[in-house]
């Protein structure tokens, strides 16, 4: 992670009627708020919003544009953050946008281990959404009304005569239409262990490390060790027979292709499909490095990909549950005097008491 020494200076504006300042028309405003709400979901894991929102890893953000940025009751900001912010300063659209572009470089030491939102438009949408949420977590009524007005504005199509419909020639029922090659290519992103489906490209562990630190480490830890209950990605070699096995890419996963496939289809969590194919090669190479499978200068390419085997591949077997004795079905289960003596408790749920409170 590169760190800028330069302090992050915020101009102090008064948080004026932002909504009107930024957005000319209701429809434009609604689009931005609606888009911002969707984009905001990547933030919601740490920052709650809405009625009853409370502080989580980050402070709750109800009415964030109207409050003092670095002083929120019940939330313990990092000293880096409080030092960077003037005591009474409030966020405004431009200061928040500048911060969100890259929180960790703007305020080194902030708890906000988030790579930032690179698109200025996306930042504007997120800020429009946050500005529309009041201190009680309610979306401003004008915004809601504008969204629903936008949704109801659908065009009425004239009905087509049934006899004019052309019936396709394929198949049995002649239903659906032929998928275009571009459409198949857009969705068919799966990769198999034999390399089928791998896109042309390459990436090295160094580049992967930069992407990983910015986009993965907040959940998976700096070294793949996992934070909280997020998945551990590295280490654990030789632990599969331990009392507490650690199932990681290196210790458990059978195929490298699964790493590439899964990162490409589902990661980063909350921003899926945002990495380029080469980025995914880089991140995969870095995860191999974190698992001590390759050196730091390793480059993974579509040509050398299938050469690599993960250590645990041979330890997967097909389903053989039917060989377990009670599967035979040959013996009628015992009905009387099946176990000698009276039953005694050997384990109790109440001892552990992990049942959620139901009141």
């Amino acid at each position: 992670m590169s760190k800028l020494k330069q302090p992050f200076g915020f101009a102090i504006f008064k948080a004026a009627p932002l909504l009107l300042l930024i957005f000319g028309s209701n429809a434009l405003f609604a689009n931005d708020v609606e888009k911002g709400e969707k984009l905001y979901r990547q933030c919601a894991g740490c920052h709650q919003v809405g009625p009853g929102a409370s502080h989580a890893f980050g402070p709750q953000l109800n009415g964030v544009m109207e409050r003092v940025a670095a002083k929120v009751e019940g939330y313990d900001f990092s000293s880096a953050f409080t030092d960077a912010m003037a005591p009474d300063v409030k966020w405004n659209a431009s200061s928040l946008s500048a911060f969100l572009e890259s929180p960790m470089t703007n305020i080194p030491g902030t708890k906000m281990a988030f790579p930032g939102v690179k698109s200025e438009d996306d930042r504007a949408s997120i800020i429009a959404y946050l500005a529309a949420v009041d201190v009680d977590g309610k979306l401003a009524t004008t915004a809601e009304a504008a969204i629903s007005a936008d949704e109801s504005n659908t065009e009425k199509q004239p009905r087509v005569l049934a006899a004019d419909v052309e019936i396709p020639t394929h198949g049995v029922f002649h239903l659906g239409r032929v998928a275009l090659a571009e459409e198949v290519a857009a969705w068919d992103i799966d990769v198999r262990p034999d390399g089928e489906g791998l896109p042309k490209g390459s990436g090295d562990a160094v580049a992967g490390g930069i992407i990983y630190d910015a986009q993965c480490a907040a959940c998976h830890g700096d070294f793949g060790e996992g934070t909280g209950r997020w998945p551990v990605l590295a280490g654990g070699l030789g632990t599969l027979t331990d009392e507490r096995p650690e199932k990681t890419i290196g210790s458990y996963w059978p195929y490298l292709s699964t790493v590439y496939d899964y990162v490409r289809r589902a990661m980063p969590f909350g921003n899926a499909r945002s990495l380029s194919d080469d980025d995914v090669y880089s991140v995969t190479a870095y995860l191999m490095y974190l698992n001590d499978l390759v050196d730091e200068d390793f480059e993974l390419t579509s040509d050398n990909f299938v050469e690599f085997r993960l250590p645990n591949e041979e330890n997967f077997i097909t389903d053989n549950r039917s060989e377990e004795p009670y599967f035979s079905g040959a013996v009628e289960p015992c009905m009387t005097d099946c176990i000698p003596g009276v039953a005694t408790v050997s384990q109790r749920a109440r001892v552990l008491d992990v049942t959620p409170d139901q009141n």
Partner: protein
Amino acid sequence: MTDFDNDPKPIKTTANELNKDVIKNTVSRRSAIKSGLALMGGTAIAASTGKIANANTPDPLITEVQDWNRYLGDGVDARPYGMPSQFEKDAVRRDVAWLTADAKSSVNFTPLHKLEGVITPNGLCFERHHGGIAEINPTDHRLMINGLVDTPLVFTLEDLKRFPRENKVYFLECAANSGMEWRGAQLNGCQFTHGMVHNVMYTGVPLKYLLAEAGVKTAGKWVLPEGGDASHMTRSIPLEKCLDDCLVATHMNGEALRPEQGYPMRLVVPGWEGNMWVKWLRRIEIGDKPWHQREETSKYTDLLEDGLARRFTWVMDVKSVITNPSPQAPINHGKGHTVLSGLAWSGHGKVKRVDVSIDGGRNWKPARLDGPSWSRSVHRFYYDFNWDGSEMFLQSRAVDEFGHVQPTKDALRAERGVNSIYHNNSIQTWHIKPDGSAENVEVS
């Protein structure tokens, strides 16, 4: 993302503290008559207070006119989509927050102890998401079939509704249901130990019709369904299963799928683990080999004690649980006649029989199966008996039509160890105490 492989450490107890006589199931005709007379004589235990109520005092709920007897209620338009009574607020899905890292990749549980019959109401079907609930306008949804087919195709929801469709009731059980119990009794309530199962009537198109429409090439052996949510869920399924009984469902229990169950369309894979029932289904690919996706390698593989791991463990084995009484549903009426109730299911077919034990597996009696008996659907069982008020160790044991017998916890652990996470179909024990309360225990 996170699954249930980080369950907290169990704490072992020494066992003999509650060693008491188990009661006998047989109650003499005379004592049955006596207890009946006692009730008629006007005594009953009030659940909340434990006091004996005296029925010689007229009940004001009968002798006085109540508000709801006098005043008008809501008219027809007050509830355009009807919801349960305000007095049923406890009948809701619940989660176990410590299980997973984030609610968007988490699970909650069906309140089995609040339900009767065999159909799970749509709003109570447990949820398991890997990237949150995708909210998809059906006009924006597409289903693609590609890979080893003659003609790759794209269907809309409207196209799908023009195929012949079927109505079938199937259970869906998460492979990790009861996964927290491998190391010992952990959670107090069948909702938490067994609540990752639901049973729904699906309306859907047999997948074989969609595959035939595209024309599967002879090399095609495997099928990869993919979801349209932010996790792009994928699993490899053998073609034979898809040609056998899989559906692409659009409706559940008569209405459109709920968003949390994959609206506008989901895959139905009868008898097989819930993770394969891909929600928000947007693509079906045909291939000649399995894809070894994340959810069939890193997850949903069963680690055994020797370090080997089983993969492609698709079928959900024969299983049952007593839902009433159970820790969330204690016996509140004192001794006397009572109805024990529970659910049984098997991914292999129909449930043939369920046995019930009240003495921790020493002696078993056949329970009464009631309601429809469909293959790969949940079955309801009852056991009617007189409780004499002494402690019980309740167990149920299901046997399916192929003779598969639900194993004990010890039998399963002896074969697999305790790190399998998935496919724990072992016999559950509820300890019913003399005050009627219930606890999740294991007995020896």
